[in-house]
């Protein structure tokens, strides 16, 4: 569907005004996590384990405490005991207990009058370790004789006799695999691996926390979700969440990595111990890379059967993923559910193992699990297409899911836009560019569920007839603008007359973080509901003035109108007029909405990439890149494109160069941007985008989340393109120059 068909009739939706926080962010005024300070503030530093796995024999802080300016030291002994489940794992991850479980695991924290003194003091805290055997590789960790990380970690799902680091086993499927494979003309299976990558947000974690002996506390923190911070910090510290007020700063990127806690309880614990003085804690980049949420590393097997005409008859995946030393962090369930989400395949098998390893606790990273799954499955689809001489887009069209198709993970899809993205990719000029020597083209599709989540929004009409919207989802990529556009559209007032505030935990009911591509969907949907409440009240005020039935008043173009001839003949009463009198007509006017909305329609995307590979060095240059993705309705198309482009860039980084590199000693060897190689400006071309709009029936304006799907297709698309350019199939990420050159040499 063409975009103008859908947005027809909208005044604001689909336009690209300046974002409300733009001025603050181009002048340096916007306050991020580390920009906040308080009077009498202390500075914190963390002591971290240099060992991948070690028993903590003794922690001696005597020398640190003797240093002038040191006010408090916190170890695990200062935290409450008796926690269970995820709360316990969060606490374990905040400060190690009996064992340090990965290189960089926090062991103690100190607060002092300056950051330099705190750092000096951290070096004076003496920790005695008994080093234990460690394991960082996912396949090694699954061996029966691997070092045991967390005895008894297996949950109900793990079959008897499994290796001790297997924490969870998942299987689901449908149909008859054997029969399906027998039907195929070609059946192939292959093994694929991906390395852990980091979200790589440029802003390190930072917080200022203050907590008194009475357990009342405040925190200013960069986070995707202030209520999650409140809940998790309170659980770890054994305090009452209602007594902790958390204010989110501007956030310098998150991509899922700031939906949970890492060091955040420590400023609060230190503050409490230091007589309630506020404590600021800012992570270094090395701390971010060593001790905050990367994504899982994966070892994956795919088997797929295809007929000569391209019909996929059966497929099976076996995914093993490590998510660090605690159960529940690996996205293996998501990966399995995403694996065949783009395909209508009658016979399917999914098997997954979550494995513990001596690595940092994984956090969500943009479409968690989906990129790895896509790398394996979309590579395999490409391998079969090449073997059978079939066009990769045609094969995807032939097998692609559409409305009513039963998804690989169970339910039937409602209206979705995969086919539309494939058609748009096929029609795009990039797909027709003729390629030169050593160049190749790759295609892949991707999927993400999208998410609704707990949401609470309020809208207040201001005395001057403007509106303020309070939302609980931090603005990580322009959501103030998208919510303001929807509010302007809903109320019928100018975009500039809407002020969207991201508020602290005391100002609204619980909100889940900005995650799952939900801010524009869920906060937008809740805003719309809240606005209906405000509109209803404004209609009531007009009815009151006109002395007619409120039901006889309608709202359009920012004013109350009599509903029809029968309602009476009155001049429309504008929001400005109603607002000016509201104190005298019944009091302030507002609307609010709380819910856990369903209907977050999934977003599908298809990417096309052209590369040129230097046959002598294995260096891959991305020549051109196309992202086609379904946005449902693009509220602010420029920021929708931004999500597509940013997701693609992260996926390109994951595909080509980014990786966690562990040494034999279990230490992370590249906790620095120099060697954790994210794409730089000169690595990338312009990233072309096509916004497909297949409106989501679950949202008043048809919005689908757009944040996550874009990171998924680049991994296989690059692998497919490199194969096209070189004839070498890379089944292991990253596909860096040594790997590509070795693959070229290996094929002879």
């Amino acid at each position, binding site marked *: 569907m063409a975009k103008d068909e859908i947005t027809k009739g909208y005044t604001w939706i689909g336009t690209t005004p300046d974002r409300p926080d733009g001025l603050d962010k181009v002048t340096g005024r916007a306050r991020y996590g580390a920009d906040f300070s308080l009077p009498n503030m202390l500075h914190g530093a963390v002591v971290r384990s240099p060992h991948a796995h070690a028993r903590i024999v003794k922690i001696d802080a005597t020398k640190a405490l003797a240093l002038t300016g040191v006010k408090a030291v916190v170890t695990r002994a200062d935290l409450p005991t008796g926690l269970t489940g995820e709360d316990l794992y969060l606490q374990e991850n905040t400060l190690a207990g009996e064992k340090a479980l990965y290189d960089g695991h926090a062991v103690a924290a100190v607060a002092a009058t300056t950051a330099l003194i705190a750092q000096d003091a951290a070096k004076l805290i003496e920790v005695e370790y008994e080093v234990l055997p460690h394991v960082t590789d996912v396949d090694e960790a699954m061996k029966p004789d691997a070092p045991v990380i967390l005895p008894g970690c297996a949950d109900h799902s793990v079959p008897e006799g499994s290796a001790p680091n297997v924490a969870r086993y998942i299987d689901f499927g449908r149909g008859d695999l054997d029969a399906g494979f027998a039907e195929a003309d070609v059946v192939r299976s292959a093994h694929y691996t991906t390395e852990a990558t980091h979200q790589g947000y440029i802003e390190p974690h930072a917080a200022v926390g203050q907590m008194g002996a009475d357990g009342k506390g405040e925190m200013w923190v960069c986070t995707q979700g202030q209520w999650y911070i409140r809940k998790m910090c309170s659980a770890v510290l054994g305090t009452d969440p209602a007594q902790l007020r958390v204010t989110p700063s501007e956030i310098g990127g998150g991509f899922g990595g700031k939906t949970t806690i890492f060091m955040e309880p420590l400023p609060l614990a230190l503050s409490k111990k230091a007589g309630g003085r506020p404590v600021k804690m800012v992570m270094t980049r090395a701390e971010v890379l060593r001790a905050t949420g990367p994504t899982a590393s994966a070892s994956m097997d795919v088997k797929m059967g295809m007929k000569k005409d391209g019909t996929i008859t059966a497929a099976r995946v076996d995914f093993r993923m490590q998510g660090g030393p605690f159960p529940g962090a690996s996205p293996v369930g998501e990966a399995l559910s995403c694996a065949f989400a783009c395909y209508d395949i009658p016979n399917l098998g999914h098997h997954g193992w979550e494995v513990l390893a001596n690595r940092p606790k994984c956090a969500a990273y943009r479409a968690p699990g989906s990129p790895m799954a896509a790398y394996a499955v979309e590579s395999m689809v490409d391998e079969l297409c090449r073997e059978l001489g079939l066009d990769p887009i045609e094969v995807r069209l032939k097998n692609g899911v559409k409305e009513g198709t039963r998804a690989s993970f169970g339910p039937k899809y409602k209206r979705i836009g995969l086919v539309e993205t494939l058609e748009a990719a096929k029609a795009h000029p990039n797909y027709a560019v003729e390629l030169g020597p050593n160049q190749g083209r790759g295609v892949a599709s991707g999927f993400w569920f999208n998410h609704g989540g707990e949401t609470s929004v309020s809208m207040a009409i201001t005395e001057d007839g403007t509106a303020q919207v309070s939302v609980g989802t931090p603005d990580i990529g322009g959501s103030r603008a998208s919510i303001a556009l929807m509010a302007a559209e809903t109320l019928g007032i100018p975009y500039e007359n809407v002020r969207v505030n991201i508020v602290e935990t005391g100002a609204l009911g619980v909100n889940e973080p900005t995650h799952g591509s939900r801010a524009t969907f869920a906060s937008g949907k809740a805003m719309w509901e809240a606005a209906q409440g405000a509109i209803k009240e404004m209609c009531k005020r007009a009815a009151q003035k006109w002395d007619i039935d409120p039901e006889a008043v309608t709202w359009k173009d920012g004013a109350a109108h009599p509903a029809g001839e029968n309602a009476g003949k009155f001049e429309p009463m504008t929001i400005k007029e109603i607002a000016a009198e509201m104190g005298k007509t019944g009091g302030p006017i507002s609307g609010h909405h709380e819910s856990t909305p369903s209907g977050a329609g999934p977003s599908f995307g298809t990417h096309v990439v052209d590369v040129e590979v230097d046959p002598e060095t294995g*260096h891959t240059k991305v020549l051109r890149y196309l992202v086609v993705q379904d946005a449902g309705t693009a509220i602010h198309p420029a920021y929708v494109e931004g999500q597509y482009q940013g997701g693609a860039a992260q996926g390109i980084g994951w595909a080509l160069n980014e990786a966690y590199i562990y040494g034999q000693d279990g230490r992370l060897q*590249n906790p620095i941007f*120099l060697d954790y*190689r994210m794409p*730089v400006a*000169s*690595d990338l071309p312009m990233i072309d985008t096509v916004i497909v709009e297949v409106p989501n029936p679950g949202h008043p304006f048809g919005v689908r989340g757009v944040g996550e799907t874009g990171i998924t297709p680049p991994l296989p698309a690059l692998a497919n393109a490199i194969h096209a350019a070189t004839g070498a199939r890379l089944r292991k990420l990253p596909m860096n120059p*040594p790997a590509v050159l*070795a693959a070229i040499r290996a094929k002879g």
Partner: protein
Amino acid sequence: MRYHAPATFEEAVSIAAGASGVTRFLAGGTDVLVQLRSGLVTPDDLIDLKKIPGTGDITRLEDGGWRIGVAVSGAELGAHQALVADWPGVVEGMELVGSTQVQGRATLTGNLCNGSPAADSVPGLVAAGANVTVQGPKGTRDIAVEAIPAGPGKTTLAPGEIITAITLPPRGKHAGDAYLRFIPRTEMDIAVVGCAVSLVRDGDRVVSARVALGAVAPTVLLVDACAKAIEGTTLDEAALAALTRAAEAAAKPISDKRGTKEFRIEVAGVLARRAAVIAYERAGK
């Protein structure tokens, strides 16, 4: 940490000679500050050389050579047109160090004294036959650049010794140099392999050459066999093939997070060939 900003090299040497703890010299600071911030090296005495007169100068010598002060940044080097015309390979090596921001600070001498086998500016200096002037408690000496690195993070400088300037020889006619490095990205990486070639032509024939390889051994290598492979040739296919083999044979790298041994050996050959072609073309202009 004590910070010193001496006004003369004599003063700097005497501070360094009198220091008992860890001493570091500060020019561009792009390595020293990273080590300081990461807690890797916290000097007891940090001696800033930038206040010493002349350290920021690029001077044409009477014999046609160049003297480059120890505080001259990469950006200043790149902006010096006459120097770039003489020694494009030396300058391009320096200009590959870090970002534009790092270029605003980083220096040739600092890159050399950091002792990294992968230092981008060092192969160019070695191929150029550059010398450094070293001043210490026992006086002043001039030595070849390739004599400075002693292994990863180490130099042959004695305690209290400072490099006070780098001298490039006269370029002469029909000569050219080039530096190429291989990195996984297009910018911001440490060289996985680096290669500099400097040569002089007589017509189509290479009369003399110096070839230096970086990141394939504990120190930057000056490889005579590579020079021999192209000297006396017209840099035809046979010469380039011989050069490739000589570079591969000379490379004795390790496998690490930046590249495998096999990859480095192969790419050393590729870069030697490509750099030689560029240097040859430059020499013909």
